[in-house]
């Protein structure tokens, strides 16, 4: 039962804004500065209102020789302190909207350099990633063909799907990392086959629920090479806490090399029958989905 009080009190003596994990996405800085602006507004309001509260409590504490001021209020004052916050808050809302549309509107997703499909899964709790393979084109998805070993429902009739490979990463301490190139627009098509999950990349300021039955576009652009953690932020069952993933942001050359390796590593796996409890790098193509479909 060790406990380090000085670390336990960090919230009291360190600025709240220093607790953010390092930001490595292009739009993250804008979101952080918006947070900071609201934070400083809150600090100001806090000291204003608490100042008045404390001053009034001290100055007007009970004294039996004094009588309180008989005053019911004043419409002009009410009007003023209605109007000012209204202007401020509506302004804040309109100002916020720019960053919101930029990060979330499907119509404003920038032209992707790399596109991957991602799903959270509940059976053992982890993430499934699908890369387009050497041809760079995804095969069609067919929800009728979804099985355990073909979680994305890659259409067995589509030639583009033949080289698609899938990484099934278990959660926990040793997930299978995925790699993505630095300074590139990454588009994630997000969904789920079971329950809700939420794709949370703290360092990229990205969070989006994965919704079964729907593909949602999530984009980001990582600006710094390194290893970052992926988390699930929506309760998805007993193992929700364990849905840890890992994302490597690589230089383009390293990324290309990794992509090639992955394709080769997963190739032998393609031939082997895939068991339902696959937790290593597994790959699925049309043959697999056919053999395991029933």
């Amino acid at each position, binding site marked *: 039962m060790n406990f380090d009080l000085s670390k336990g009190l960090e919230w009291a003596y360190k600025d709240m804004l220093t607790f953010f994990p390092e930001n490595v996405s292009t739009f993250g800085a804008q979101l952080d500065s918006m947070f900071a602006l609201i934070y400083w507004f809150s600090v100001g309001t806090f000291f204003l209102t608490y100042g008045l509260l404390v001053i009034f409590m001290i100055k007007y504490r009970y004294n039996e020789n004094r009588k*309180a001021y008989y005053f019911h209020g004043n419409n002009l004052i009410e009007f003023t302190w209605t109007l000012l916050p209204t202007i401020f808050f509506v302004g804040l809302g309109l100002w916020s909207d720019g960053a*919101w549309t930029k990060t979330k509107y499907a119509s404003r997703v920038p032209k992707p350099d790399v596109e991957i499909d991602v799903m959270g899964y509940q059976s053992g709790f982890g993430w499934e990633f699908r890369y387009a393979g050497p041809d760079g084109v995804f095969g069609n998805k067919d929800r009728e063909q979804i099985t355990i070993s073909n979680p994305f429902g890659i259409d067995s009739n589509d030639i583009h799907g033949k080289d698609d490979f899938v990484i099934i990463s278990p959660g926990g301490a040793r997930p299978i990392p995925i790699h993505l190139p630095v300074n590139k627009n990454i588009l994630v098509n997000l969904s789920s086959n079971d329950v*809700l999950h939420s794709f949370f990349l703290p360092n990229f300021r990205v969070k989006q629920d994965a919704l079964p039955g729907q593909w949602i576009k999530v984009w980001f652009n990582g600006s710094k090479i390194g290893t970052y953690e992926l988390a699930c932020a929506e309760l998805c069952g007993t193992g929700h806490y364990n849905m840890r993933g890992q994302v490597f942001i690589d230089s383009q050359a390293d990324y290309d090399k990794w992509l090639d390796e992955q394709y080769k590593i997963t190739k032998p796996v393609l031939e082997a029958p895939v068991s339902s409890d696959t937790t290593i790098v597994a790959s699925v193509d049309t043959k697999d989905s056919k053999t395991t479909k029933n």
Partner: protein
Amino acid sequence: MQTAVANANDIHSHDTHHGADHAHHELSFIRKYIFSTDHKVIAKQFMVVSLFFLFVGGLFALMIRWQLAYPGSAIPLIGNILPTNWVSDGAVTANFYTQLLTLHGTVMIFYVIIPLAVGMFGNFCIPLMIGTDDMALPRLNMFSFWLVPPAGLILLSGFFYDSGTAAAGWTGYPPLGPTSGPGQTTWLVSLFMIGFSSIMGGTNYMATVLNKRAKGMQLFQMPLTVWGLFITAILIVLGTPVLAAAISMQLCDQYLHTGFFMPDNLLVTAPDNTYVTNAFIAQGNQLLEHKQLLGGGGQPILWQHLFWFYSHPAVYIMILPGMGIVSDVLSTFARKPLFGYKAMIFAIMAIAFLGFLVWGHHMFQSGMNPLLGTTFMLSTIVIAVPSAIKIFNWLGTIWKGNIRFTAANMNALAFIATFIIGGLSGVFMASAPVDIYIHDTYFIVAHIHYVLFGGALFAIFSGIYYWFPKMYGKMLSENLGRKHFYWSFIFFNLTFYPMHILGVGGHMRRIYNPYIYEFLQPLQPMNQFVTFAAIVLGFSQLILIVNIFWSLKYGKAAPRNPWQANTLEWSAPAHPGHGNFDTDIVVYRGPYEFSVPGRDSDFYPQTEPPSENEVPIHSGH
């Protein structure tokens, strides 16, 4: 309108006679204390049951906190006596942890805050403060209470399933909810029942306020507590049926294999971690080949819309009565009229109206069309305005007052202090792009506890200290009251303020073991600090219980009007019996005529006839 009032008065007087008849024949113990139709007894019943659940919910919270501070280590004292399907080696299992967080939220919201704020104060205050003998529909009132204990038992009984109770969070999102076993059913049924309890209560409050006000009392002469409860009743009656409908739909998804919330082709996991399908659920534990879900064509997000369409207004259901209580307590102890009486009422109305237009801010990251995010962001941010108005008016109320620091007033002031922080942290989430990062983190947990514990519960404490003398005829100990306040207020802030920081650090909610994430490992000491503070906070609440029992036995007998307040309940006898008032109640003025110039005493009860040569006061400037 005039005839309606006259009719109501007829009914009123008829009821009075009826009540008087009963008073003559001694009521049996059961009719007097158990199946009572007296609104004051029902209020006490709500209080007892909800305070019991407060400790149950608090115990759940402390078990959650222990796991976050020292994952996998045995819970002190109770860890080794809990059943083995809840704990392993004295530490909570992941499955039990998820049940605990689900039940903590459910119990605190549906079995503590709503029954205390609405059930207890609604029942106790409304008839007394509008000067009538009882609720408009006393038997409905009794029924609304008597749904609560069985609903609570059903909720807690879920723990005794082998697979445990509901574990889909207090929000019960599908597809996790309907596929997570029988515990979810007890949860749904129990919420359905308590929802009906709420609806019956709300209907009754509306009928009572509109029909049973004392002679001379206009709507704009009602104290803010009654206004808060009245608007709350409207919210309940409009919102709760939607929850009831959503619950029915989830039950149908679970048992009739409808597809309201279930999309096509789901692969769902059963508690034993095997892929199963709806067919599996349909055919009763007969594990089929990996086939796709049979039900379907539905939308998981539909549940979220329906759930939050109720549960966002429910936040106001929990806070509006508190705002009313605080307004009355502050004005009474500042010996000063409430600042901006009508503005306060219009602010409550504005909050209630806007409260129905903002539910989507819980769903910014849900996959809802982001265009709606823009809409809900604007409506949400506008709701900050009436909240700000209320804060300014409370500050205006104590300005140039003559403030008495009773336990009731200290809790009311604490309400303002914590509501400011809870309101400000709400602005972060209202801004949709800022919410992307903090959504589903401890920042949200901090916010909701600042609003519901710091806000609603401190207001409830304030109300308990304020009205206890009228409820039980005994004064609560001010000394113990202050102790309870100081310990609660300090350790409340030490518990929940650091959670904002945890949230900024990225700490997700509902995480059994945060420290498998490297970026969360540095936050462990703060989690431990929060846990220690929470333990002290939890035990501080025992002071309130001790105070209640001690004062019931040894407390000073309460005078009729111990706080020298103006509202009608203080014109009733010190410990009013069935029927409430021993005099005819006529209302001459508004409830906040404190420190009126030219009067000897600094208060002016609503019932005191004006002196001969006095210019009548127009209430509600």
